[in-house]
């Protein structure tokens, strides 16, 4: 036979949670009820969550780096990236050189209604044109609006954070985010 019945212990747990939630303060102000501070939840639209830097929120496009090589579109498991481009003559790199042919991006759409946020496109991009931004508030009332076009994707670039430092013992190289 146990000393304290489990039922009473259970009541104590929930009771203690009430007290901790309503009176979270310590010290002199213990008796001032402040549930908004004591609760573990946050009032979402008023208080925003700060996702970690690596969070895969939305994909940002650094348009200048994109060469329309189609690698991302091909590797995407659900084919939600649409790219169109054309070749264009660009002025030579050095004065007096030959004019170059560069790939110019006409269309770069990501359909977030299809995207499953796996990050393969960002990973396979050989030219550092795609980045993850932790921004997560881009829900839309109409599903068609989830198709982000080139300009919208470029706007996300501003929200891309710098890559964070690595934990001790790592030998990985810290990448750089190009300035927008």
């Amino acid at each position, binding site marked *: 036979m146990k000393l304290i019945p489990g039922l009473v212990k259970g009541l104590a747990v929930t009771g203690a*949670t009430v007290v901790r939630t309503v009176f979270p303060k310590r010290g002199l102000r213990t008796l001032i009820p402040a549930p908004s501070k004591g609760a573990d939840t946050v009032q979402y639209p008023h208080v925003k969550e700060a996702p970690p830097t690596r969070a895969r929120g939305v994909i940002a496009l650094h348009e200048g780096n994109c060469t329309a090589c189609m690698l991302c579109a091909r590797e995407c498991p659900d084919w939600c990236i649409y790219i169109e481009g054309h070749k264009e003559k660009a002025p030579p790199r050095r004065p007096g050189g030959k004019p170059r042919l560069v790939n110019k991006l006409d269309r770069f759409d990501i359909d977030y209604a299809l995207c499953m*946020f796996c990050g393969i496109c960002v*990973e396979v991009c050989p030219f550092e044109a795609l980045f993850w931004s932790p921004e997560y508030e881009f829900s839309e009332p109409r599903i068609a609006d989830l198709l982000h076009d080139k300009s919208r994707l470029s706007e996300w670039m501003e929200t891309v954070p710098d890559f*964070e430092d690595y*934990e001790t013992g790592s030998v990985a190289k810290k990448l750089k985010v190009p300035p927008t």
Partner: protein
Amino acid sequence: MTATESEQLRYIAAQAADARVNLEIETEGMTLNIGPQHPATHGTLRIVVKLDGEQVIEAEPVMGYMHRGYEKLAEVRTYPQVTTLVNRIDWLGSFANEVPFILAAERLMEVEAPPRAQWIRTILFELSRIANVTLFLGDMAVQVGAITPVFFAFRDREHVLNQIESATGGRFHPNFDRIGGLKDDLPAGWVAETRQAMVKIRSFCDQISELVEGNEIFQARTRGVGVVPADVGLSYGLSGPNIRASGVDWDVRRDSPCGLVYDQVDWKVWTHPGCDSFARFWVRLQETREATKIVDQLLDDIPSGPTMAKVPRIIKVPAGEAYVETENPLGVMGYYVVSKGDLVPFRVKIRSASFSNISIVPWLLRGVYVPDIITILGSLYFILGDIDR
């Protein structure tokens, strides 16, 4: 199997002895559909039970409402793409789904991840176990009627999910494992934060054990309900905590730790001789505690070095076949990968734990009462994605 049958008869007799409805009175049987839309089925599992009063005569799980054809999909996806897919099989412990597939592919390619990657893999593996099983601890309480524990479970699971997210970038679907290592290294400060999260999880376990495990009503509801004798469980292919709760000391993590570093830490496999729903709850509670210990020990000495072995940029897996299984949160999960040397696997067979775990449901539900159906389903703990794949 005769042992199975006799065990079952004995079990039914024990269940029915005290309150069996008089069989001479003609009663109409009733067929009750539990699911596909039902709070106890965690999704779209359907169980057709034939009832005599409140007693189950026959129960048949109907699966496939959520079948997404992963095995077939995997045949037309490259290896990195498959990693994304299999994430979504057991969505609560999703990192753990990637690992056996990656290990099988690594075995075929004959590469081995560097020690640091193995270490981090194991940590994340255990974190996803915690993320999965904490929810079970709350959910089981909800199944038997207590509402509060599940809020605690969601509250404290958040700490673990935050850690998974800040390391992998994905909260639910990390997609962090790569053939030959990991996608990235850990961010700075992650180790210390994870340690704090483990402290929170331990205090959550204490809370649950006071609020639920020690509760007399909970014990009355779960003890002696859904008894799975060890031989029956094994013959039905139960694995993981479900079979350990029947007293079988079998844990793939300890017995064949391929690619993960469980042999480097000091931990214990918990078993319970009870065989009933309470034992399954108890084993999972202990395993959550044990997982926090494993994580803590692993965090202590992560070796330094690279997280990625040398692998070609375009992955072509040489022809061959490999089967790797790991001890996932829900039980033993295995991938049988057959490659013909292509970019895509020729065939992937997924042995998911829940599918085998609920195969015992018809056997187990015969002769129990309606409320016990829910207790048993809750204690077996399945994830629909893991059943239907």
